[in-house]
């Protein structure tokens, strides 16, 4: 995945605002990153950090106030042509967090899964549509006869698979998965993660994985961006980030994740992030490359400090 450097999605200086003129709230500010074809890119942060907002801006659910989002080199935010709009609707799809809330209770699975292709008329005739629904359901490990049932007849894990099936039927290239497993039971999480990674291997899908659970993110992603208060503070290859977390916020986040190991848990020290540890009054922070595949938001003084930490570890 790494040696393939074809950029699928480019986010440049993204800013998203909420509220009117009087009480404007800037949820995301100055966010830039690239997502390469075939990789899984993790967006990690706490509630309110803006991770979901970034995902939604890519989906064009939230409008970008500034900056641009490019998909395959074409700008997709703001005013775009009808053809491009159609292409983006088809090629970028989203998996939602809560499978209990994201499926229409009154529609049969058949309709839920077909809704996307109905909208874009992506089928020849009724038989073709049925075949497509069947294929999408079997691809996620469900039985074709489930199509005639209603969502309430399914368990949480099965519902999330229906959510994945309706994404697959569109034959997307980029999938934004917003906390796809956090509402599921432990034993079901593994199943859904496995399905996601199989589909990626078979179809060369690219994922943007939005999550707060770092232990899951480490397992599934190739690169991770850590977001704090609407800004990316650190971006690195997943393993590098866990081995050498540099930004104090990343360190706090990693230290807070409980590990399934009682002795280590008893002895662990939790780092607490205090934004006042940065002295940004004069020396303003910049987005810099600190080592190969590892970027960080830091000022000049901090860059020197971080470089020393990295060198001492070699």
């Amino acid at each position, binding site marked *: 995945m790494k040696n393939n450097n074809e950029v699928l999605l480019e986010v440049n200086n993204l800013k998203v605002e909420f509220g009117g003129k009087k009480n404007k709230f800037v949820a995301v500010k100055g966010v830039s990153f690239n997502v390469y074809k075939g990789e899984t890119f993790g967006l990690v942060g*706490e509630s309110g950090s803006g991770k979901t907002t970034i995902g939604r801006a890519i989906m064009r659910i939230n409008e970008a106030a500034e900056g641009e989002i490019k998909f395959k080199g074409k700008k997709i935010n703001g005013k775009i042509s009808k053809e491009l709009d159609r292409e983006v609707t088809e090629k970028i799809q989203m998996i939602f967090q809560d499978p209990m809330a994201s499926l229409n209770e009154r529609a049969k699975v058949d309709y839920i899964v077909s809704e996307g292709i109905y909208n874009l008329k992506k089928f020849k005739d009724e038989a073709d549509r049925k075949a497509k629904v069947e294929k999408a359901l079997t691809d996620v490990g469900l039985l074709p006869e489930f199509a005639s049932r209603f969502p309430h007849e399914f368990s949480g894990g099965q519902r999330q698979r229906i959510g994945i099936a309706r994404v697959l039927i569109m034959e997307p290239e980029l999938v934004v998965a917003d906390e796809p497993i956090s509402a599921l039971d*432990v034993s079901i999480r593994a199943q859904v993660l*496995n399905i996601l990674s199989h589909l990626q291997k078979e179809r060369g899908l690219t994922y943007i994985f939005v999550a*707060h*659970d770092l*232990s899951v993110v480490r397992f599934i992603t190739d690169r991770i961006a850590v977001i704090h208060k609407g800004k990316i503070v650190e971006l690195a290859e997943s393993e590098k980030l866990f081995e050498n977390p540099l930004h104090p916020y990343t360190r706090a986040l990693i230290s807070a994740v*409980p*590990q399934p190991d009682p*002795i280590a848990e008893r002895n662990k020290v*939790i780092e607490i992030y205090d934004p006042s540890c940065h002295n940004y009054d004069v020396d303003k922070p910049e987005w810099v490359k600190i080592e190969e595949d590892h970027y960080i938001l830091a000022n000049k003084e901090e860059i020197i400090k971080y470089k020393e930490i990295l060198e001492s570890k070699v």
Partner: protein
Amino acid sequence: MNNKKNNEVVLSVSDLSIKFELRGRSLKAIRHISLDLYKGESLAIVGESGSGKSVFTKSFMGLLDSNGWIDTGSINYKGTDLAKFKNNKDWLKYRGGEIAMIFQDPMTALNPLKKIGHQVQEAIELHQNIKGDAAKKLTIEILNDVGIPMPEKRYEQYPHEFSGGMRQRVVIATAMACKPNVLICDEPTTALDVTIQAQILDLLKGMQKKYNLTVVFITHDLGVVANVADRIAVMYAGDIVEVGMAEEIFYNPQHPYTWALLSSLPQLGTKGEDLYSIAGTPPSLYKEIVGDAFAPRNPRALKIDYIKTPPYFEISETHKAKTWLLHPDAPQIEVPDVIRRLHEHFGGNR
């Protein structure tokens, strides 16, 4: 921690069965559980949704839904059998004052129309017989105790002015205001962020030490369990299939279901490979379960697992598991790779 012997039993459950009536059919949610709770310990109950972990602990407080009842067995607390209680009046003496509970979602556990201070004070006035200014003073002390900054100001505020973590602190304050002996925490941090989760867990552990509380944690997050539990009970289909000290469960698990639970942790996965996932679904509780309830999902199941329910086999004084694999005549079965890896990964180098 490891003082099972010299420790007094606070609550003793024996042969407890709980049934529910659902659409004319009866469902057995808890199947003959026996378990002792020791003074000052923290016990974690883990299991999938639907394993009965919440129902089990709700029965200690008389909070079963109206279509559920205790079918057999007893819950002994200070010489009284709580299982015999018929009406709410009996329960009022125990609920809160002796056994208190913290729920998962702090958003719904508080009354949005009442000031925070009044909600905590209400508990004090009801349980400690202190009224007026003295109660207010104590409320502010408790708010301070659970780590709420500027308690005098916060006393006058409403739940919507609090963040999720702060709200959960208020819920804990309300529970502590009753001066309970046993505190049941039902997924206390599931709705919170990781960094806040760590703080709330620390707070609960602090409270436990300070007041020598007995705490029961209900959770499905094995990371949280490793952080808080002295002892762990693993539940499956309404029964406790394995119970032991935290180290015993994590470093030397015996029941195939415990193996499966641990194996499906993403922390133990290898990148690029499939994560272990448990095949099938839990058994229907409407039917009588024959043999080992986990057998149909267990690739290593023995013949006898389908015929006869295994008894507890003791591994140590504190550790026992319900699996035929521990029978002296059982064939030697290889522990799954992942479990061995967990052992090397975490426990092996100590």
